[in-house]
């Protein structure tokens, strides 16, 4: 049995998968996980998974590569994959899962998925991202809502402004804040933050259908249409309400401006909540989480996931399948997401331990996934399109935001860039 033929290997994989799904860990395996959850709360969150895997008798080999956006980790992963020795699992998300699947590196999780009934607890938009050619190859860890707006209510009070719910009200509030000497919008001028703001405005201006046509289907009519022009025009207005120090600023520094009351609002995903919690602020009174103006009832999702790589050793395959099962277990979903600030991916999760921002996000997540409309993949976070296309969109959006390009030129360049990168 030292040398296993390919056919044989497949059989043993299936056998091991079945064994794994029944949670009878007869053989202890090792699971090596490549991730970049290295900051305080994230590291705590992932160590929970480590303990759970180890309590099932397997060994956990941590392979953490620091560096926020995961670029370093992905470079390491490529080197390992090319040398024929990929880790058991890696933090890969969105369309990149499909690219790795196309290259033939990923292992199927269908047995675990069937035994655990994943199709029943995950909304189809989420499970579609996790599947390659119809089989599960990755397991979702959490869901982030991107279209949030974080508000410092005392700053708004000082300026005599109210919390905006439409784009028009947003500019009114911003004007009042500006008049009161408060920076209206805390913004970090980095390409992905520009794109995050841009996509929230696009969702607000054109609604979820327009959003999907533009950023998922890359429909040229939607990319060049009046809604896109309006999006660019509204996006330009943001620049009137940010401070001069914003270029290059990290998102958490911008959040700190809202925390200190120097700025009134920030457009950022729910990872910003961790900063507010760390500053001992409580939601609803010290800070408010409201949907981005005009996007109430819609949900831009950003899902972190762990993709599984094909393994040769049967014991390791079993460990891998066990880990996949544990990741979607309600216990892990609860502890991980309480630490990370995101919401659980299971629709049947008990939300009692979560704060009101998370509960509100979960309600919208459930409503939109049941009704089938309003749940859209985030373009700015690599959920809707390949990194090549989203990178091309980033370039246009950030160039537009930092120059005096006209909205017409912005629309034209965006459509061209998307077509060229496809």
């Amino acid at each position: 049995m030292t040398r296993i033929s390919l056919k044989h290997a497949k059989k043993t994989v299936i056998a091991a998968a079945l064994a794994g799904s029944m949670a009878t860990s007869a053989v202890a395996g090792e699971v090596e996980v490549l991730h970049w959850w290295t900051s305080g709360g994230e590291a705590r969150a992932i160590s929970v998974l480590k303990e759970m895997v180890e309590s099932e008798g397997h060994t956990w080999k941590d392979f953490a590569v620091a560096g926020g956006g995961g670029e370093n980790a992905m470079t390491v992963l490529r080197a390992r994959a090319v040398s024929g020795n990929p880790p058991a699992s890696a933090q890969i998300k969105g369309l990149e899962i499909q690219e790795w699947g196309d290259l033939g590196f990923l292992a199927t999780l269908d047995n675990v998925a069937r035994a655990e009934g994943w199709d029943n607890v995950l909304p189809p938009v989420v499970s579609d991202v996790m599947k390659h050619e119809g089989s599960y190859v990755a397991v979702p860890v959490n869901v982030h809502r991107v279209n949030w707006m974080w508000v410092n209510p005392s700053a708004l009070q000082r300026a005599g402004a109210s919390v905006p719910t439409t784009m028009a009200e947003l500019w009114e509030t911003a004007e009042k804040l500006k008049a009161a000497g408060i920076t209206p919008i805390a913004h970090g001028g980095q390409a992905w933050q520009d794109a995050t703001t841009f996509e929230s405005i696009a969702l607000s201006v054109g609604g979820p259908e327009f959003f999907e046509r533009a950023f998922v289907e890359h429909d040229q009519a939607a990319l060049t249409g009046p809604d896109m022009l309006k999006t660019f025009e509204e996006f330009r207005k943001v620049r009137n309400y940010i401070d001069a120090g914003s270029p290059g600023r990290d998102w958490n520094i911008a959040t700190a401006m809202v925390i200190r009351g120097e700025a009134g609002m920030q457009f950022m995903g729910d990872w910003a909540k961790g900063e507010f919690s760390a500053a001992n602020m409580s939601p609803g009174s010290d800070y408010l989480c409201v949907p981005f103006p005009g996007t109430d009832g819609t949900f831009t999702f950003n899902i972190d996931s762990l993709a599984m790589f094909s393994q040769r050793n049967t014991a390791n395959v079993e460990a891998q399948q066990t880990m996949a099962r544990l990741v979607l277990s309600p216990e892990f979903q609860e502890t991980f997401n309480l630490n990370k600030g995101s919401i659980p991916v299971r629709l049947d999760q008990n939300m009692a331990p979560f704060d009101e921002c998370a509960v509100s996000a979960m309600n919208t997540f459930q409503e939109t996934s049941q009704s089938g409309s309003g749940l859209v993949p985030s373009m700015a976070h690599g959920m809707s399109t390949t990194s090549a296309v989203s990178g091309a969109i980033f370039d246009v959006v950030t160039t537009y935001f930092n120059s005096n390009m006209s909205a017409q030129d912005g629309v034209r360049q965006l459509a061209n860039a998307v077509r060229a990168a496809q």
Partner: protein
Amino acid sequence: MTQSLSSKSTSGTTRRTRHVSLGDRLASWIPKLVVSPTLLITLIFVYGFVIWTAVLSFTNSRILPRYDFVGWDNYVRLFANERWMVALKNLGVYAFLFIAICLIIGLLMAILLDQRIRAEGALRTIYLYPMALSFIVTGTVWKWMLNPQVGLEQFMISLGWESFRFDWIVNPDFSIYTVVIAAVWQSSGFVMALFLAGLRGVDDSIIKAAQIDGASPITIYTRIIIPSLRPVFFSAFIMLAHIAIKSFDLALALTGGGPGISSDLPAIFMFQFSFNRGQMGIGAASAMIMLLGIVAILVPFLYSELRVKKDD
């Protein structure tokens, strides 16, 4: 006697020849043996990978290398990309200003330090010290200094100069010049050290002769000393040119290529397309263009310099 002599001599010569030939052979082999591992490593990891990159630039590799050849497609896409054109234009501005200013400041500082002043050693160390910092550190420090809300501008305003404005780092039209400022700050001390060594190497007797002939110090410098520093200019230029073309960490730490893409450089473009955006083919093509840029500058330069030396 003859027999004994011959036997003695043969044994002597054989012993000697064996001894000598072994030593000679060792002596001739040792340098090759010592050099061969580095030669091999260089051949594989420099030239081998250059060739691999060249091959990849003709394939449609995305997140991993693949060998479906697509001809010049990547180069066509590269030059149709507006961001690449911005990066190339920035490199032109940056490389020209960086090299020119470094050479001028370095030469001036070297000449001033060469005036037999006191505490020369201490001053030389102070000017050379920025070279000891990595570009990441330089970039981060200058990012704070140039930030209009915490740095120089705020400092001048707090001193009472209310109208003082220096916001190049957040201005898309000027951000590339802030990269030049930081790079010059870092590298001109090094150029100064090169020139200082060159100045000390100029033959004293020629200068003395010129002084006896009544030449002014300015004439001595412009007519005699600076022209004789030609080889130093050559090596300084080569060092600075390749620092400029491969510039990556400084711009990334200082401006992150921004605001927008206004201070983007080819090295940043190459890294992002190859490793973040899953477009390894286009990334490889941009790397080849950067290599060709260096070759296009260096080959004519090397050719003319080396020929001049031979003629001398």
